[in-house]
């Protein structure tokens, strides 16, 4: 088992924001986490990678590649983050350093974890740019984030996350800030890269159709708890929890409405 999360609980003061979350993730498998804002999706992933603010009280257990991550010293965690676990965040403009050329940012995890030189790192950054479908890597690596479009920035985010071939990629609403046409491109890119690398994926989103298009299993979160965890197919056929049923119903209504407009009735 690549990742085992057991009874993960996060508290801020007297408020429990993640409440007894447990799930497993095998190597090369994919899990979606869905729920509305404030349901604890993001905090769950931040707890896994040890990026919660210091005021948070965390309990339970997170085992990754046989190693307990909760309570791990910052230095030891740094050896895992960006190396064995890659991360992509929602808003690439805030996730990237505005003062550093993107080539150097892509080279950073390689320099930190594989000890390559800046020159070698930049060379690898160019290869990574090509892999994430950025044209003209030569120019891209010399650009600052503000000089790139939203889609290009998120591709850079992916290049950084995947630089060290992580066993696990955590993507938190990676396409929410993007236009639909760009979202489609980034999703299909992420899909093929994760498959090529054989990485596992945790994909956090509020958007059920997006999650269903890229993962095999879905965990539905509400008020800090996982209220249902099932394969995408069985969830759609027969969701057991009322909240999951509501989510699916809302997605179906919207999908049917759109289908009604785009497909001719006789087809």
């Amino acid at each position, binding site marked *: 088992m690549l990742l085992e999360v057991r009874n993960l609980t996060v508290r801020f003061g007297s408020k429990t924001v993640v409440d007894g979350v447990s799930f497993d993730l095998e190597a090369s498998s994919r899990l979606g986490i869905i729920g509305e804002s404030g349901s604890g999706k993001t905090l769950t992933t931040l707890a896994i990678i040890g990026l919660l603010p210091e005021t948070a009280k965390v309990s339970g257990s997170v085992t990754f590649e046989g190693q307990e991550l909760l309570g791990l010293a910052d230095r030891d965690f740094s050896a895992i983050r960006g190396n064995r676990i890659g991360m992509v965040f929602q808003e690439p403009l805030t996730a990237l350093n505005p003062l550093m050329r993107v080539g150097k940012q892509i080279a950073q995890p390689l320099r930190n974890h594989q000890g390559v030189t800046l020159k070698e790192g930049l060379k690898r950054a160019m290869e990574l740019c090509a892999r994430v479908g950025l044209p003209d890597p030569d120019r891209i690596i010399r650009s600052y984030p503000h000089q790139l479009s939203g889609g290009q920035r998120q591709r850079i985010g992916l290049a950084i996350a995947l630089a060290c071939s992580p066993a696990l990629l955590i993507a938190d609403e990676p396409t929410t800030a993007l236009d*639909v046409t760009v979202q489609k491109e980034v999703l299909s890119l992420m899909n093929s890269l994760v498959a090529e690398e054989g990485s596992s994926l945790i994909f956090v989103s509020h958007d059920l159709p997006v999650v269903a298009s890229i993962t095999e299993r879905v965990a539905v979160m509400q008020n800090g708890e996982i209220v249902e965890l099932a394969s995408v197919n069985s969830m*759609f056929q027969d969701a057991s929890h009322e909240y999951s049923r509501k989510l699916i119903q809302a997605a179906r209504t919207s*999908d049917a409405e759109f289908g*009604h407009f*785009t497909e001719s009735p006789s087809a």
Partner: protein
Amino acid sequence: MSLILETRGLSRIFSLPRAGFGKERAVRRAVVDVNLKVEEGARLGIVGESGSGKTTLAKLLLGLDTPSEGEVRFRGQAIPLADMHSFRRQVQVVFQDPRSSLNPRMQVGDIVREPLECLNVTENHDTRIIEVITEVGLPKDLVQRFPHELSGGQRQRVAIARALAPRPKVLIADEPVSALDVLVRDEILSLLADLTTNLGLTLILISHDLSVVARLCDDVVVMQHGTAVEKGKTMDVFRAPRHEFTKRLITAVPRLPGTK
């Protein structure tokens, strides 16, 4: 059916800061030669990606921005009209994020009262506030609360109530559900659908989400780089898009597995 809003050769060009000393100012053509005809009672969707000029167009329609070229006509008269209060009573707006569009220091009742006072609405304000709060499905006692005490859906209902308070004929909604959770989004869309039907409103709905427009609008305009690249009946445009960009937009909408 009579024409209520119309744009003729509407353009808005922004000049950007100089790229450097002695360099020319670049310009951004946010809206380029847009010609729209909106009939009374129509429900028109404006779709496009970020930066396509949707919101600039909305601001021009509201008279919140001045066109560089062309004009907006309300019932045949070019805006700004001599009596802008009358125009604002008849054309109202709901913005994307109620957290920033509602004044955090004002109670809900006062937020809804503001347009009644500013626009010299003659009917009894207290009665109208309660009436419109109820109309958007909120409990009456909410009038004494502050926006931060409400949920996202409730806040957007307050924004809708404020827009409806002066009994407008046209409601312009700029991404009214983008900041909301899926289930809440559903409720607000139903509310907007009911309100437009019951009150005979003309709705101009701006959204990047095609399924939102499919659900609420009979007509659609597709914007790209400030230009209206395609317009027509929503059903015709979505079923048989003619413009390449419209086709790309439609195929990019994520669909559910196994539901055809």
